[in-house]
């Protein structure tokens, strides 16, 4: 018998040093085993309960990622006031759902939306390959997007808006069913408004940055009045003339480029003229200076010569004059290259002698007949 019990409960035999009822093993063996089993399963249940409580408490932990903030709604109301509402990135704890609700707000993340209400009909594939759709003769409002400009023209505009949720971000998160949709509409509206205040020419080429600024300012106003709770990071606009009028608009741009070139040429020519005039002026002044110097030196030289010759002249003016004259003739004739030297043939009818000094054009050689020289 005891063998049988031993076989049934081999563990018990070793464990109970304080086993209370050794005298009646046969009678209580079954109930004892049952109570032991119940007791041990209660232990398991207790452990499970403890684990469940731990899991319950632990499930309240959550991590706020670096590019987001979080808000705890306790019984539907944001917990905390003012700046304390926002939970910074890191680990936090809240009660589980029916009591608390954690709402994550992607405050730091840049969000992007596109506006194409003003863009012509095209497909993504065409956009990607840069192929333009065929230019329509007129614009069907159901299919083609466009905007009206201040001068009543039609142009196409599309835009990309990059924005972030402004802290604390509660408006963006809790005030709108679909805040990005509201932002998108405000952006569309700003594009329409900006276009309505700019002429086609200005918006497309002359003042592109001003146009963009106008759109941005209007968007900022809408953000403020509609309490969208965002910060504009960047706006990119792309504007183009209607497809049918591209050539006409290009002609205007070319004309402007040509005008720029004409002006540039004119300016450089003007510069050249002015520089030339300035250098000429310098030369003229310098010539004046050198004339002055020469004149002064010449007169000084002559007066020196005069002073040095004066005593000799005073000795015998007539002789002096003849001597000087002879010297001069000598100088002239020795220097001269005599080409013709006419000797008189008849008495009393003097003929002329031709002397050519230095070089002479060839045609004079033919002037053989003496008669020609007379006149």
């Amino acid at each position, binding site marked *: 018998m005891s063998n049988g019990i031993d076989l049934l409960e081999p563990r018990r035999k070793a464990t109970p040093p304080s086993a209370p009822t050794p005298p009646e093993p046969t009678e209580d063996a079954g109930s004892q085993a049952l109570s032991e089993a119940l007791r041990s399963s209660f232990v398991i249940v207790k452990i499970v309960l403890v684990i469940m409580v731990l899991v319950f408490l632990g499930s309240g932990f959550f991590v706020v990622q670096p590019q987001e903030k979080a808000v705890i709604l306790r019984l539907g109301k944001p917990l905390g006031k003012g700046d304390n509402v926002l939970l910074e990135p890191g680990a936090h704890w809240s009660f589980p759902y029916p009591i608390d609700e954690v709402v994550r707000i992607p405050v730091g993340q840049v969000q992007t939306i596109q506006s194409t209400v003003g863009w012509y009909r095209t497909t993504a594939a065409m956009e990607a390959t840069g192929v333009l759709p065929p230019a329509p003769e007129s614009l069907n409002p159901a299919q083609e997007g466009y905007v009206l400009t201040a001068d009543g023209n039609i142009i196409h505009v599309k835009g990309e808006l990059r924005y972030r949720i402004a802290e604390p971000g509660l408006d963006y998160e809790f005030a709108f069913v679909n805040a990005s949709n509201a932002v998108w509409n405000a952006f569309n509206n700003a594009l329409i408004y900006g276009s309505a205040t700019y002429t086609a020419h200005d918006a497309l080429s002359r003042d592109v940055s001003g146009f963009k600024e106008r759109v941005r300012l209007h968007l900022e106003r*809408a953000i403020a009045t509609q309490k969208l709770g965002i910060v504009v990071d960047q706006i990119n606009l792309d504007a183009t003339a209607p497809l049918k009028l591209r050539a006409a608009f290009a002609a205007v741009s070319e004309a402007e480029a*040509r005008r720029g070139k004409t002006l540039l040429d004119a300016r450089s020519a003007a510069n050249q003229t*002015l520089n030339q005039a300035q250098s000429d002026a310098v030369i003229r002044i310098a010539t004046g200076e050198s004339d002055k110097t020469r*004149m002064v030196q010449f007169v000084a030289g002559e007066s020196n010569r*005069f002073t040095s010759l004066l005593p000799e002249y005073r000795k015998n003016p007539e002789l002096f004059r003849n001597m000087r004259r002879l010297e001069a003739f000598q100088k002239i004739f020795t220097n001269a290259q005599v080409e013709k030297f006419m000797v008189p043939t008849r008495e009393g009818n*003097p003929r002329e002698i031709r002397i050519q000094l230095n070089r002479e054009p060839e045609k004079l050689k033919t002037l053989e007949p003496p008669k020609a020289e007379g006149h």
Partner: protein
Amino acid sequence: MKRNPITITIGLLLLFIFGLLLIFFQVRTTEVAMVTTFGKPTRPVTEPGAYVKWPWPIQQVYKFDKRIQNFESKFEQVFTADGHSLLIKVYAGWNIAQPQVFFPKFGDSVVRLEEALSGLARSAYSGVVGTHPFSDFISTDEKQLKFEQIEQEVLQRIQKDVQANGYGVEVKFVGIKRIGLPESVTKLVFERMQAERQLQVRQIESAGQREASDIRSAANLASANVLSEADAQATQIRGEGDRLAAASLQVFEQEPELGKFLMQLRALEDFLKERTTLILDTQTFPLNLLNGGPSTAPTAPKISSNTTNE
């Protein structure tokens, strides 16, 4: 009997939670609620938090999103005060503000409200646009432009109508999302634009030429000024030279005859440095020697022209 307290505690706790769920309800910060008693709306709740009610079927709670919803009208034709036809599309932001008014009219259907709103919006923007000329929609001068004023008028009109009709909603803002022209008009606009560009090209070209010639003539004028100033300066300098020379010339007054003679000699030499043809008659000294005549005092040779400078 050891486990009884635990079991009872757990049981009571579960019962308590269940009871709480029956009589409490929570209104989120984004919501408003309407409590109905036997189907009749009795208590609106507009602030977030936890509230008590009688358990179903006595009281029931309807919750509404009170966040701003987006409404967009159709893109349709309206007429301006000066008879232009214009296509316009507006958007609006609205939210449920008074659940006790909203609920009896629309139940919890947002769609039905949007239908109603669309009618109000159409009458509002077609009415407002009809009081403005086309020029109010576009202008380079932001002060002239009535764009925002028109939006504001449409908003006020919708707000008034919503108020009058008792929808229990609040329209927060209205904006124009698109403005367009009827298709037939766009063709005319294209033609006008084409003509405008051609005119622009001509204007730009003629303006460019005019500016260029302005620049050139200004430069010519400036250089003429520079040159005449330089000439004046040079003349002044020469005059100074003459003045200085005149001082030296006083020396010649000692013997004017000699001065004159020397000057003549110098002039003769200078003159004959050039390529010159001399025609001399045989009476001229020293050629008169050839005639066997007396070698009297020489007379000045005749000097004829043909001074050439190449």
